[in-house]
């Protein structure tokens, strides 16, 4: 399961690491609800198969990996970079470069002999990510899913400054007001994402083929084409390109499997969280408490084990 800032992805793999069930939904700022609903749909699609399926291991990744990991009693809880690398290498063992653009972050992973040897990730700002494209789509009054095809129809893409999202936006507004056609603007935006990505993450890195492009934004064919144009290499986009993180997490779980069968009834339990500021010492850690059916399951955010247990044990 890959619980990202914008979307939550889940896959079920068989022994041969092939996808037998998959689901993609919006997180909508509520990872607990997203995980529950995802489990429901995965169970449903497994029920449609003609055989009994037992889930032997669970892995989580993405920004809510810890929360979901505790919720599901996961065998593997891994960061997105490792998960994406492992997922892609299971499909493309020869891959040398992975471009990944998600909702809030972007990663560049370099691989040598099937091992991640270097990576870069966007830092303080979400420029050049899916969030940029979707906010601009909203401004132009089009669906983000349509952007790619629309951009491919453009004959003269508008040049849009790519350094910073805020500047790109004012640049785009200016071009729109001076009469550029919508598809030219959209094409310009898609190119801007690519140049921004390569400027920020590609700095000082050597990009070598085969190049695999994944993450939600890889579903936009205009961005993939802009990557091909900028790098000069063919760019592979897998049909499951949006699921690679989840696939990687599943493979890591398979490797770490503890041998217990996962119970889908986990989705029926009630989970809740509560955050409070520990006053135990001057560090004032923000402690997040995680409850299952009203019982404290885990806490995080505390730097030491001496947080206020009494306070933590209370369910709000």
């Amino acid at each position, binding site marked *: 399961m890959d619980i990202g800032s914008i979307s939550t992805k889940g896959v079920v793999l068989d022994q041969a690491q092939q996808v037998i069930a998959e689901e993609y939904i919006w997180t909508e700022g509520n990872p607990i609800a997203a995980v529950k609903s995802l489990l429901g749909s995965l169970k449903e699609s497994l029920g449609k198969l003609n055989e009994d399926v037992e889930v032997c291991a669970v892995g989580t990744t993405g*920004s809510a990996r810890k929360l979901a990991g505790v919720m599901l009693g996961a065998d593997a809880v*891994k*960061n*997105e*970079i*490792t998960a994406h690398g492992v997922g892609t290498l299971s499909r493309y063992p020869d891959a040398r470069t992975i471009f990944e653009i998600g909702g809030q972050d972007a990663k560049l992973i370099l691989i040598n*002999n*099937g*091992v*991640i*040897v*270097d*990576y870069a*990730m966007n*830092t*303080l700002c979400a420029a050049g990510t899916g969030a940029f494209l979707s906010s601009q789509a909203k401004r132009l009054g089009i669906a983000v899913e349509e952007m790619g095809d629309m951009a491919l129809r453009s004959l003269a893409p508008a040049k849009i400054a790519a350094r910073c999202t805020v500047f790109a936006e004012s640049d785009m507004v200016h071009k729109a007001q001076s009469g550029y056609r919508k598809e030219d603007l959209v094409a310009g935006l898609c190119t801007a994402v690519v140049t921004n990505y390569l400027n920020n993450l590609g*700095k*000082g*890195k*050597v990009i070598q083929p085969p190049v695999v492009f994944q993450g939600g934004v890889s579903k936009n064919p205009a961005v993939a084409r802009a990557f091909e144009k900028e790098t000069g290499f063919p760019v592979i986009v897998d049909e499951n390109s949006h699921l690679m993180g989840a696939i990687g997490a599943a493979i890591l779980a398979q490797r770490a499997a503890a041998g217990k069968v996962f119970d889908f009834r986990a989705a029926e339990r009630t989970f809740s969280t509560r955050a409070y500021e520990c006053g135990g010492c*001057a*560090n*004032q850690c*923000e402690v997040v408490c995680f409850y299952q059916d009203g019982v404290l399951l885990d806490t995080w955010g505390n*730097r030491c084990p001496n947080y206020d247990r009494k306070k933590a044990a209370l369910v709000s």
Partner: protein
Amino acid sequence: MSKIERKANELVFSFPHMGDYHVPIARLLENMFPAGRVLVPPPITKKTIELGSRYSPDFICAPFKFNVGNYIEALEKGANVLIQTGLGCRFGYFGEVQERILQDLGYEFQFFSLARENAKVKNAYQGFRRLGSPHSPAKFLAYVLIAAESIRIMDHFAFIMRERTGFALRPGSFEYLYGCMLEELRQVSTLRELIAIRRQYTDSFSKVEVRRPPDLLRVGIVGELYTLMEPYSNLFIEKELAKHNIVVSRKMSAAFLLFGKNSRKSLKDTGKYMKYWPGANATDSVAQSRRYGRLGYDGIIHMKSYGCTPEINAMPVLHNLGKDYNIPILYLSFDGQTNETGVQTRLEAFVDMLEMRRKTFEKDSLSRGGHRFHFDKGSRS
């Protein structure tokens, strides 16, 4: 926050935090001003950085904000003499700006800046005298020497601690010993005592049992000095690395800045990578990274506060160096944020990557002769 009782005309000295250096600095001030009082600012918390950020220019580096937070908390507790130092970047002008900010906030205090000209021994002595230090130049020098030697001892053992703490049979042994040593340094008043402390802890540090696996990973830490030395500002990254059983090597320390730093030598040590000095510690970052590369370390972490110009200058050089020595470098910028998730994700991925690299390319790293445990002599080398 409770305010201390202050007698009329009593001087209460305070200074910003940086790691554990409040120990020798507080002792130095006590020695210099027997009639005054020393107030160590409350430990850095979220509130400190909130206060500091509120009253600092937005685009100033994070250390400035931490300092302002420390000053305000110290002034609120009753301090009335504030001390600052300075170095060869924006840090050199922190004092003037901070003094003005605090005055504008309505605090009454004296500001004693040991930056630039004021840092020269003669001027520093006169500064201390003006504030009421009764000592002769000889006595003054003796106390400075004690403080300097205390810092050297601290950094020597801190270096060993960073390298070994991930492998202590009983976790926390090194931290415990180090804490005991700090308490002794807090009381020290003669050089003879210092020599005894050094001897005693050399002995007890060597007695801590460590179990080092044969395939341990080693990471060097380089970058901007404050972010490196104040663990709160880098979200305790060294502790995090030790949890992953990694040898953490960091040469940057107060002792290094005071005794080990030599701009000409470090420029030479950057080899072909740098021709000119781009300010502050950029050449040190490159020279140290090159050293880690040559020693066959598994990775380097470069840290700086957001917008640190000298270190930004070092980064393109480090890109090339990383490529030449085939050593991955993780770049982190901090801006007084308290959210650890982003840093943890990057760090976890970095550690995973180092482990995978090690498994696959083990032969290469062996052939570079870097596999053995390397005990760096720290500030002494």
